[in-house]
Structures are given as C-alpha cells and as structure tokens.
C-alpha cells in the first residue's frame, strides 16, 4: 500500500475520491435540505451561508442535490463495474485458459460488442428495455463486460503455459483451482486498475445518458440531469451549471488517476 501512495497520480486520485466518499457517506444520514423540496421564492440564488452552493430554478438546494447525485453515480458505477468484472472475468478466464474454438467464438462476440461505442450500445439497450435506474445499470454493466473479458483473457493466455501452472497440473490441481486460486491473484492488479478506469467511464456514461434524458428521470438528482437543466440558466446562474460539471469531472479524474497509478505501480513490479 505504501508503494501505491508514493505514486502521485494514485495519491491525488485517492484524496479527491475521499472527499467525494465523505459527501456520499454524509448524504446517507443528512442533507442540508430535502433534495426535492421546492422553494420558488428563493430560486437561482447565489451561493450563500443559507445555501452553500446556491439554489436551482425551483429553489432546490444544489449542495443537497449534488450529494445525492454522487450517490447515484456511485451506485451505477459500482454495479456496472462489479457485474462487468464478474462476467468479464468468467468469460475471459474460460476463453483464455482453454483457448481453441470456444475462445474464437467468444472473442468474436466480444469484439462485436466492443465495436459499438459504449454509450451507443447503452442507448440501444435502453431503447429496447426503456429507461430508469435498473435499465441504466443493466446497460452500463453490459457495456463494461468486453473490457474486463479482454484483460482477463490476455492474462490467462499469458499464464496458462507458465511453469508454475504446469507444476500445479503435475501436482494434480484441477482447472478451476489453477484458474481462480493461482492465475487470478497474478492478474488481479491489472483487473483492479481496469475496474477503476471502468468506474470512470460508467460515471461519465450515466451522466451522459441522463443528460440526454435516457438515463435517470427528473426529479431524481442525477448529475447528468442537473447539468441538462442548468444549461438553460448558464448566463443568469453560471455556478449552477459549473457545480455538476466540476463534480462529474472530479469523479472521473479521480478514478482515472487511481487506475493509472495502479497500472504504473504494478507495471513496474514486473
């Protein structure tokens, strides 16, 4: 761990993320105002002691909405990465370890999925299944699979003929044991780095979809929705559009920095 903290990108990423996490954690118990409570007498107010980040066009507290917005981002990022990682690992490990015809067929499918821009793929799925939190999560999960599958596959291909795997086979270890108890720990750092980068893309994709009206629906406090609503008031209330933008940017940068840092450190180990 100390090794990782010496890496500047990782460190900066962790600091930003910690602040975001703190906001997320507090939002579970307390937000300064109710996120949907309107107060038309105080709409589009500047940041002040009353409303730390100002109010939106319905007089809702922006800080409270950003806090809840981060929650949505994390929720979607986490499900997308977790399911993408699990399914991608399952597909990539079998494909890479056993190889052959199965591998060829699976990789054709993965390549096809990869050929679609991620957001387009998500839009297609949402067009078929409709929008909402669950469908957004599903769409982004499917979008995350190919990346993990590729990384896992190349890792398993690298190790399946290595001496220690051969030695395990000679000792009588079964394929399942070799794949998940012996090879997996060796490619874990790469997968974790990819997970961090995928987290960033999932957050970005969710914000993008919600901005386009395909993801979360108002009045849910998604950062993407806030952004699309704020753009109409860009000149009258520039802080309003700036706040969700900066939040999205910070989240994405944090995860990217962490992912890069992890890759640098684990790459240097070899």
């Amino acid at each position, binding site marked *: 761990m100390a090794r990782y903290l010496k890496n500047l990108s990782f460190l900066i990423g962790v600091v930003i993320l910690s602040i975001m996490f703190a906001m997320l954690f507090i939002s579970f118990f307390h937000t300064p105002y109710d996120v949907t409570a309107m107060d038309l007498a105080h709409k589009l107010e500047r940041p002040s002691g009353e409303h730390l980040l100002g109010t939106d066009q319905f007089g809702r507290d922006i800080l409270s909405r950003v806090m809840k917005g981060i929650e949505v981002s994390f929720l979607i990022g986490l499900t997308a990465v977790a399911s993408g990682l699990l399914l991608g690992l399952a597909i990539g490990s079998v494909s890479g370890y056993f190889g052959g015809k199965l591998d060829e067929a699976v990789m054709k499918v993965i390549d096809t999925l990869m050929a679609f821009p991620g957001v387009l793929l998500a839009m297609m799925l949402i067009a078929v299944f409709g929008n909402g939190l669950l469908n957004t999560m599903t769409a982004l999960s499917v979008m995350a699979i190919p990346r993990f599958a590729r990384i896992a596959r190349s890792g398993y291909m690298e190790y399946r003929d290595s*001496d*220690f795997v*051969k*030695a395990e086979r*000679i*000792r009588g*270890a079964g394929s399942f044991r070799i794949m998940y108890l*012996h090879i997996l*720990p*060796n490619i874990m750092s790469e997968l974790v780095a990819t997970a961090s980068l995928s987290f960033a893309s999932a957050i970005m994709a969710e914000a993008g979809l919600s901005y386009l009206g395909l993801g979360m629906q108002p009045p849910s406090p998604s950062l993407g929705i806030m952004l699309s609503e704020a753009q109409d008031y860009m000149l009258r209330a520039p802080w309003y559009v700036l706040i969700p933008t900066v939040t999205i940017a910070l989240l994405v940068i944090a995860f990217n920095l962490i992912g890069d840092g992890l890759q640098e450190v684990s790459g240097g180990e070899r």
Partner: protein
Amino acid sequence: MDSLLKMENISKEYKTPYGRIKALRETSLEIERGEILGLVGESGSGKSTLANIIVRLIGSDGGRIVFNGEDITGLSEREFRKYRREIQMVFQDPYSSINPRKKIGYLLRECLKIHDKHLSEDEAERRVAESLEEVGLDPSYASRYPSNLSGGQRQRVAIALSLILRPRLIVLDEPVSALDVSVEAQILNLLMDLREKHGLTYLFISHDLNVVSYMADRIAVMYLGSIVEIGRTEEILGEMAHPYTKALFKASRDISATLSGEIPSPMNPPSGCPFNTRCAYRSERCSLECPELRSLSEGHLVACHYPLGEEERK
C-alpha cells in the same frame, strides 16, 4: 531388470503453421527402479518433449507407457489422477516454477489437500514442516513468499513441493542449470541424499555432461527425437560408441572439438541416420539407411552402423 517406467515406441508430432515437427521418433526408454538415468542432448533433441510426456503434460501420438507394472497409456485425466502424485517434476527455472503470489506453506499444504481431502490441519502442518526440513530449509519458511528467497532456496522449495507427495519417480529437468555454481553442488548433493532416503528414481535431464556423469547410473543420449546411445555411465564415458556421444563429450572439454553446424530442423530431418549430416565418420550407407538401436554389450545400446572402435574414441 526391474523397470519402474517403460516407454515403447513413443512418437510425438507437433503441427505448426510451417509444417509438422517430429519431436519424438518411435523412442523407447526404460527407467529402472531406484536408478538415476541421465538424459543428454542438445536443445531441440526432444528431451523436454519426452519429459512432458512422462509427467503427462502432453499426450503421445503412439506407443505404450507402462508405469510400475501398469499400462497408463490411454488413461483419461481422471483415471490418471491417482498416478499424478507418483510422478513429479522439478523445473529448470525456480523463478518461474513457483507461483509468486502464494506463500510457500500454502503451496505445500495444497499439494497434500488435493490428494487427501480428509487430511487434518495438524497433520498437514506437520508434514509441511517436515518436508521443508528435509530439503534443508527452516519450517518458518512456510510463511514466506517466493520473492524473499534466493534461487537456491527456491529450488529447494520446488524439490520440497514435488517430494511432499511421496512420489516414486521425479523428472529433474535441468534442475541446476539456472543456479549459481556455488549452489549447484549443494542441490545435487541434496538430490542424492533424498534418493537414498526415500528410494527415489530420477530421470535427470541436462546438457551439462559433467553434472550428468557425476549423478547418473546410466546415461541416454538423444539426438533429433531418438535415442542414439544408452548404457551405464562408465560405459558411455569409457567406451562411447556413437560419434555424436563423442562429439558431445569432447565439446564439453575442448571448445575446438565442437560439432560443426546446427542440429537439423526436425521439420525436415535428413534421410537415413539423423546424425549423418554432421558426422565425421559418415559413409554412403548412413544417408540411406536409418540405424536401429542394437546391443554392443549387456545393457549398452547404440544406433550407429559403424560404432566407434578403440582408436576413434580418442
């Protein structure tokens, strides 16, 4: 002769995009119980293929393998499982043959658990400590990662890993060639001691002829996928009959005596005797007719039309 492993007419062909490679050509080999059989040859001679077939990392294309009196040729992986623990292997490079992400103790315990699911924790712990002591390491090494160990220590761990299953036969694939000279002798002596103690049988693969002559009871010389000479170590050293054996042993002492040219491509082997393209004693017959292994004296076999005489050996 009490043989532990008997391989008859084993062939192995690899398909590559460039053509077929005959890695083994109807090779037969017998390993006696309790002996150390040295296997020497250049790289590309098929030594490793033979080793991989013995430990069943790969299958053979034809022939018969009898282990401990039982035919194990056509067994499925499941049926072969009970023989797994009896045939073990130590690899050349101890840096790649041990999983760097696992503690030594985990790996040792795992060997036991794979083959005996009902083994108690205490018993496993005891046997792990015992096996580390046996290879000259402190039992506290069980809680270390391979990255904290030197090459020699790692090779001791690799030996412990194959030994803990109480095998009958251990294939040693160049077990000391990746180690420092100072460590080499220690490992060789350890292997000798362990054989004595457990009545093990070794197939000792190496290209270092000094090491092989020191270790082996018998020596087999391989060239281009077949065995060209086999016999007791003194016989091979004193009465070598194959020109290739001579070239190989001369080259280890005198650099100017090295063989000319490279080992021919196994994709396109020469007709007749596989060695005829590089042989100093070749005649017309050698490029037409492939010599069979034949007996010169009891247990000393050679595949050559014109085995070397007293004069030519020098």
